[in-house]
């Protein structure tokens, strides 16, 4: 667009808010004055200023090259940050302008030229009045004006999207600059919106969806605005009907629409360009033949008017056909239009002959939610704040809309398969049910996982390598492994005589963290187990993409808890029945449930370790002490002074016996499910919802109902006591409860903030639980004789900081996995967080903590 004036009267020059404005004029034409008058001082970069920067002299022409380097650099930084920039240099030579246009393109902003075409005499006069330019030869100005005049005709072809030519000092003097918004900037519109995925001529489904969303004849009674992500036409049965509806809604202000690649191609066809009638275009052309010439003209005009993408709702929402990385949001250039229409293609084609697209959304970290279509997916799911709404309506999938800002999905099923897809919507491979199979790049090497609750968490390379081996060789199917439990820090080492751990310190720690109410949960004497239970095989298939198992039961490193799949299914079946009997499927509106639990006895899983290490120590001590004590007693009887030694050996023998008793409490014989107990203590997640933040009293109330409704005696309740950390009497009661429980041989307890997911005054996550292990139980951790005063004194030198930090990091990763699972994110996203927990578990930390 070029505007020129008549030379008289005040002209208003439209200048886009984000653009590179190039002032063009001879020395003395008044560029700097013009810039000062119409732009913010920081928006303007002058070549003179840059000369000054590099050479201490604004007129040192020998410094020009360096000065322009600096100018381009500063302009580039401003444009990258999305700030309008005005270049105040003569810019009369095509080469100088070419560099600036390149810069604008690089940052995807509009280059705009404002030409100050002022007569030679005026320029000369002004320069003469300036001491620093008084000796500028007249021929320099003459050359500038000659070059400017020669350039005028070519400016648009050079790439300037707007060219304003101001003729004479008078017009320059009276011109004003009007800042225009970009076409794609609709940040002032706040909706609410209903963003609708690729329609592809499915007019009937569109009407059904609009009806379901509450529109009556294209108008929503509550004033909502529909936003179409493009690909209205091709393949489907009634592209004209879809166009008619959408065009009318756009015209009446009830809808917005961005173009898809299919409109774009059809538009080229309408303008008489030769395009291949493939991918369903033939159908559109044929259907449009029945329409009037007038309608076709309207369609052509409509398509031509479409803007590649929109930034809406204060910058919180970007709608675009094929998705858009953040650096392109709100920008304008040919390549952005192309990305908006076609996405980021790698240039390769896949086994079905379709272009391979770069998964831009996997790298997306932007603030704005990007809603798009283009690539058919089986389910619309959020990924890094982006969502694809093309759920293949024309291929027999469904037509999907997203309510904004509610973020609710609304869809209607396709009436039939209108068009056979070139490749199946779902990949057959494991993980293909909701995206793509797991890729090594999701987990390999040093990684940083972004978490909602604790920011960026780093996984080191050697830990990832170890986790890769365990995950690959021993873990349960990753589709059925959506969570791993975090490690838990013990309470601060106790100063209480005879104790290494004592609840006193745990209560004090929570009090210091500002947690007033805690729950003490009995620690069960088993092994950690996570259970994923689906309502039936159909639910397992639909949500987790597996055929056969109805869930999983796995250990804290993700290994199947039991070798025998049929026993696992039996346990899942009992859980399923209890959930059903308790009415929790409906109450939580879910068809699967993820549970954190303890499975008993300990000997069930740790049998090998028990025999090779614990029972062995018991056997050796049991064999050696009778003889040793007899020998000492014999010596004593002979009058040899062994009093002290004998007393000590009796103590050691008693310690060893106490040790044997301690481990025996965790062992009993099981046969199939006989003797097996499962104590669930937290429902981690259900369909669409992570329950990690549900306060523990509500959690335990749900769990109690499960236990109550378990007929077979598999499920076991978790005893608990609530303690007010600020009330000495309540703390006393908590300590007594623990003493009583551990005195009877209990493993101990876990103290948790009653509110479950709690932050301290500084906003940091507090420990989700602190374990206080019983005095006897600790014998199987610290050895039979750990309670001897000299041993205890040394063992109190233990360092908890790393363990605590690890516990928090693993907790945050676990929460992240649950959130991603609940949000319906694809498998690889959930797996990334789960894998992180496993990798962190291999960090070096004292295993006895």
């Amino acid at each position: 667009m070029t505007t020129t004036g008549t030379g008289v009267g005040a002209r208003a020059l439209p200048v886009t808010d984000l653009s590179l404005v190039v002032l063009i004029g001879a020395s003395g034409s008044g560029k700097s004055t013009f810039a000062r008058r119409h732009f913010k001082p920081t928006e303007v970069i002058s070549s003179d200023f840059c000369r000054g920067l590099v050479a201490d002299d604004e007129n040192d022409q020998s410094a020009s090259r360096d000065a322009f380097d600096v100018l381009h650099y500063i302009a580039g930084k401003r444009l990258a940050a999305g700030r309008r920039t005005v270049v105040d240099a003569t810019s009369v030579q095509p080469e100088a302008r070419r560099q600036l246009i390149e810069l604008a393109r690089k940052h995807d902003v509009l280059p705009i030229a404002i030409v100050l075409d002022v007569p030679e005499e005026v320029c000369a006069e002004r320069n003469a009045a300036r001491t620093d330019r008084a000796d500028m030869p007249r021929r320099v100005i003459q050359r500038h004006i000659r070059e400017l005049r020669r350039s005028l005709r070519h400016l648009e072809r050079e790439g300037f999207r707007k060219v304003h030519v101001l003729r004479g000092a008078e017009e320059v003097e009276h011109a004003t600059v009007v800042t225009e918004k970009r076409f794609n900037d609709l940040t002032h519109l706040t909706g609410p919106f209903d963003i609708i995925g690729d329609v592809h001529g499915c007019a009937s489904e569109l009407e059904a969806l609009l009806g379901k969303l509450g529109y009556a004849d294209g108008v929503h009674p509550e004033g909502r605005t529909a936003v179409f992500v493009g690909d209205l036409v091709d393949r489907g049965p009634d592209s004209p009907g879809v166009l008619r509806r959408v065009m009318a809604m756009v015209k009446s202000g009830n809808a917005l629409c961005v173009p898809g690649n299919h409109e774009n191609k059809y538009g080229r066809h309408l303008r008489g360009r030769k395009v291949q009638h493939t991918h369903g275009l033939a159908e559109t052309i044929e259907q449009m033949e029945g329409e009037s010439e007038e309608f076709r003209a309207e369609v052509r005009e409509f398509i031509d008017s479409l803007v590649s993408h929109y930034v809406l709702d204060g910058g919180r929402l970007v709608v675009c056909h094929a998705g858009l990385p953040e650096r392109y949001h709100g920008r304008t250039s040919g390549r952005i239009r192309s990305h908006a229409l076609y996405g980021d293609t790698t240039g390769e084609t896949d086994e079905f002959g379709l272009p391979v697209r770069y998964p831009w959304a996997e790298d997306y970290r932007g603030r704005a939610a990007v809603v798009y279509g283009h690539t058919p997916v089986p389910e619309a799911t959020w990924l890094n704040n982006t969502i694809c709404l093309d759920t293949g309506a024309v291929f027999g999938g469904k037509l999907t809309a997203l309510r904004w800002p509610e973020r609710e999905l609304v869809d209607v099923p396709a009436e039939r398969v209108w068009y056979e897809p070139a490749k199946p919507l779902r990949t057959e491979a494991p993980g293909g049910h909701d995206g793509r199979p797991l890729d090594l790049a999701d987990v390999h090497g040093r990684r940083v996982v972004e978490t909602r609750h604790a920011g960026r968490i780093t996984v080191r390379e050697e830990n990832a390598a170890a986790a890769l081996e365990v995950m690959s060789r021993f873990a349960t199917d990753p589709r059925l492994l959506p969570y791993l439990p975090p490690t838990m820090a013990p309470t601060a080492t106790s100063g209480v005589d005879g104790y290494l751990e004592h609840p006193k310190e745990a209560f004090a720690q929570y009090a210091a963290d500002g947690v007033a109410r805690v729950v003490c949960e009995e620690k069960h004497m088993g092994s950690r187990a996570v259970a994923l239970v689906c309502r039936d095989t159909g639910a397992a298939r639909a949500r987790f993409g597996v055929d056969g198992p109805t869930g999983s039961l796995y250990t804290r490193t993700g290994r199947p808890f039991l070798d025998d799949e049929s026993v696992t299914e039996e346990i899942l079946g009992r859980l399923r029945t209890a959930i059903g009997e308790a009415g929790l499927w409906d109450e939580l509106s879910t068809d699967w449930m993820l549970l954190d639990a303890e499975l008993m006895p300990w000997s069930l899983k740790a049998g090998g370790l028990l025999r090779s290490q614990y029972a062995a120590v018991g056997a050796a001590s049991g064999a050696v002490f009778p003889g040793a004590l007899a020998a000492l007693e014999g010596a004593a009887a002979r009058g040899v002074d062994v009093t002290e030694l004998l007393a000590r050996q009796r103590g050691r023998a008693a310690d060893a016996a106490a040790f044997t008793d301690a481990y025996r409490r965790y062992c009993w014989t099981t046969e199939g499910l006989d003797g097996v107990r499962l104590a669930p203590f937290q429902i981690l997640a259900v369909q669409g919802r992570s329950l990690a933040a549900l306060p523990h009293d509500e959690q335990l109330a749900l769990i109690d109902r499960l236990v109550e409704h378990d007929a077979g005696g598999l499920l076991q309740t978790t005893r608990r006591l609530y303690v007010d950390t600020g009330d000495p009497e309540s703390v006393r009661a908590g300590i007594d409860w623990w003493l009583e429980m551990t005195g009877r041989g209990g493993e101990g307890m876990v103290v948790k903030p009653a509110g479950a997911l709690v932050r301290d005054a500084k906003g940091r996550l507090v420990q989700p639980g602190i374990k206080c292990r019983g005095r006897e139980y600790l014998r199987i951790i610290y050895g039979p004789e750990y309670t001897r005063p000299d041993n205890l004194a040394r063992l109190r030198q233990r360092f908890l900081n790393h363990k605590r930090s690890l516990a928090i990091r693993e907790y945050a990763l676990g929460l992240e996995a649950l959130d991603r699972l609940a949000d319906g994110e694809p498998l690889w996203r959930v797996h990334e967080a789960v894998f992180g927990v496993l990798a962190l578990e291999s960090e070096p930390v004292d295993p006895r903590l």
Partner: protein
Amino acid sequence: MFLTITTTGTPERPATDLGFLLHKHPDRAQAFSTSFGTAHVLYPEAEEQRCTAALLLEVDAVALVRRGKGKGRGGAPDAALASYVNDRPYAASSLLAVALGNVFSSAMRGVCKARPERAAEPLPLRVEVPALPARGGPDLVRRLFEPLGWTVTAGAVPLDTEFPEWGESRYVRLILEADTLTLSDALRHLYVLLPVLDDAKHYWVSADEVEKLMRAGGAWLHHHPEAKLITNRYLSRRWSLTRQAMERLELVRLAESDDSEVEEIDNAVAAETAPETEERPAPLAVQRREAILAALRESAAARVLDLGCGEGHLVREMLKEPRFTEIAGVDVSVRALTIAARRLRLDRMAERQAARVSLFQGSLAYTDNRLKGYDAAVLSEVIEHIDLPRLPALEYAVFGAARPRTVVVTTPNVEYNVRWESLPAGHVRHRDHRFEWTREEFRTWAEAAAGRHGYGVEFRPVGPDDPQVGPPTQMAVFTLKTAGEKEAKAA
């Protein structure tokens, strides 16, 4: 951590001479400090007719764990010592042997100034070791002590009397009796054989161990029918120690956090791998590699992936043939890759040769862009190490994502197992095998996988093809169908 030595006597040759022989007075209890605790010597009985000396070692378990603080799991050289829960304070292990050597060093040398004549002559002896850790059980205990002139009473101690189904522990209650041996002989026997039976020493084996063995065992060891076992066990900890040094500590921690034994997880490389010089590959493994190489040559593959390369045997064979211009060994076990790199001597290989081979960690549970673009992939004895429910992921990673032109898969033929004499019926050939297939099962899987991904497949026997049960190893060679073949099929 306790043993007694008893002798009997007469008024002329009083049993209490034992005090002189041991250089420890029978009426006193004496204590000696050692680096891992205190040793006590005392006499529960000291009569003319019968005298018993007891050695009691109080091991400081906390110090044992904390000694090597800061290195890995506490830095103790032996995994068992890294835990506060270990048998060292109770069992008659190498620690007791060391204490024995320290406390009774003169007696062991046969020196006795007070009763020199008695030190040189045999005397009736009874040694009791109530908790002797014995890898090999009572039978090995007998085989080690009987040839030396002892009458052996050895019974295994049950693991836990409350759980009889757990069976016996590795501890043996041992009573040795003889009247033809000197005290010095007895002590030397114990000094060498306690650690040999324990088979887990508490300190690093160093060069002077050989000397110690010669000093204590020189006189009797070379006549002993189990001399080889004794020497090996006494000295051959070297390999195991290297193994421990190389142990992936991260894996150890993952095992610990799951209450598993380390060996359950860190077992990608067979522990019993012999030293390199003694390597003698089983003939079947050689035949398998030959068959694979033949298939690769036929397919004219130049760039080859060895998926699950393990210790790199096949990679080494491929390196010998210049036709293989690029060889990538991939394994999920970092330890296996470390061993492979060492065996291939990658660090010393000529530059041009080394450029042909790369080794990297990967996993077929995931798709992997680095595996794309190869001519052929080999999965030799790999699939049977994958849990069946996870096989589809491997299938997709190889046939769907990496898509080499040729894929060679070998796996055991379970039907042939009846022909292995050493294999008990119903057992798999390797502890880590998650399944072993019949020829029919393998064929069904291979044909389905080929069909799903546009490959053709043919089957070949490896090893003697038994008319009834087939070959010990079965092999499938998959070939990617060209576009033309696919169309022909569609038409």
